[in-house]
């Protein structure tokens, strides 16, 4: 590929996923996605947009077009730090941060997120810890994160760890709630509901994709 072509890929209609936009739009208030006017305010407000492979505005357009694979494997959604700058400025009141979350959930659910990229790994470890004990133990969470992504990096952070330890800010105690059974029952009742609506309940809308 020529350098000037950059990341742009040509997609044909047969490669599009017409259900994708409805899947994302199934979040509460998600329907507003279809009213996007592509003004780019979100990308302008986003403090992380110039580190992203696609800007938030492009992501919205790609979701509507049905470019499922490209959206779910992009770094953009994972770089979103959920600061909500885009959401509060969107003239069409699209909850862009929540759209990013929906894309993260789908990517994890379908196993297509960038592998060994620390952000989804952190999310996964955090989720497991809370599911188990009801609380997250910050120090252990970081240890697991480094072991799973880049163990050498952990050595680089040893100095910081020691400084925190000396000031009583690093605890190796494993935090847990008392009534774990209560929490487990609540979470079990919502098993497999990674989105509010299930995929089977969605009706893909013909011609809705931009």
């Amino acid at each position, binding site marked *: 590929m020529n350098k000037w072509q950059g990341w742009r890929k040509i997609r044909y209609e047969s490669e599009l996923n017409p259900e994708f936009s409805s899947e994302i739009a199934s979040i*509460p208030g998600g329907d507003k996605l279809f009213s996007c006017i592509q003004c780019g305010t979100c990308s302008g407000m986003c403090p992380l947009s110039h580190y992203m492979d696609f800007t938030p505005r492009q992501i919205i357009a790609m979701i509507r077009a049905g470019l499922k694979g490209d959206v779910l494997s992009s770094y953009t959604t994972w770089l979103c730090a*959920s*600061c909500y700058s885009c959401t509060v400025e969107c003239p069409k009141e699209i*909850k862009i941060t929540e759209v990013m979350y929906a894309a993260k*959930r789908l990517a994890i659910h379908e196993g297509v997120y960038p592998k060994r990229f620390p952000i989804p790994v952190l999310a996964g470890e955090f989720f497991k810890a809370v599911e188990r004990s009801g609380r997250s133990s910050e120090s252990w969470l970081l240890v697991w*994160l480094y072991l799973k992504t880049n163990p050498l990096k952990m050595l680089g952070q040893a100095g910081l760890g020691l400084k925190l330890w000396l*000031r009583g800010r690093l605890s190796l105690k494993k935090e847990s709630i008392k009534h774990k059974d209560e929490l487990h029952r609540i979470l079990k*009742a919502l098993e497999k509901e*990674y989105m509010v609506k299930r995929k089977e309940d969605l009706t893909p809308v013909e011609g809705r994709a931009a």
Partner: protein
Amino acid sequence: MSYVYFPGCSLKSTGRAYEESMVAVFAAIDQPLSELADWNCCGATAYMAISELKALALSARNLALAERQCQNAQKAEIVVPCAACYLGLNKANHYLSENGEVRGKIDQALKSARLEYSGRVRVRHPLDVLVNDIGLEKISARIKRPLTGIKVACYYGCQLVRPYAEFDDQHRPMTMDKLMTALGAEVVDWPIKTRCCGGSLTGTVPEVGQRLSYILLREAQKRGCQVIATACPLCQFNLECYQPEISRRYGEKIDISVAYFTQLIGLAFGLPQRQLGLHRLFVSVREPKLAPLAVEGSHVG
């Protein structure tokens, strides 16, 4: 009235000083706080990325427990110092009252653990409570060592004012500015006070996350700021703990104290440094001078 206090995971470890100073300040103004019994994780950002409903359910359990704890009280208010927990619990409240589908599923999940939540609990941030419930007048009356001559930048960060601006303006919040001015500090004009600190990206993708922290620190330092006042444990951690790494990475020496706003109130109240967790900071805050005693009935002409 008494407030229920929700610490969240950070206030028990890296953000211990936030808990210590907040508890000390509330005690100093005789405002009781009772920690939520058996609280669990709020569901935060990372959890939201895996399951939205489960994240909301985690917050809903906390709200249900808080409601139970306030059973006999007229009002049910929960004070949440961590900005991420504050948003998490607030979001759950909003979703439960605005979306019938979410409400139905969460209610059912809570029921399976013999819990219920009517939606009565109001989620509050300590900054909001201290300035709008207690009031600056009462706080000013307690000052023993005004923060005179200390240049403070007030950092609100993101999730305290976005997406829900519950107690202040979304673009130009002033609550903390007013509080710091009342404490005697000199508030520096620092327009990026709601810009993102990088969140967890400072650790996961440092070349990106630490740039965001650096922008905040650099602009504060340029304005002669000595202390950045924060209202979130992650913001505090990012702006303080990565300073040596940031200085190396961007070739500029950054040396600014980053304290919790509650620590600064405590300092002005003249509370002992250890009680406020000031010994846990990497860059210590200069102790203000004792104010000249105002003798009752004396007249200074």
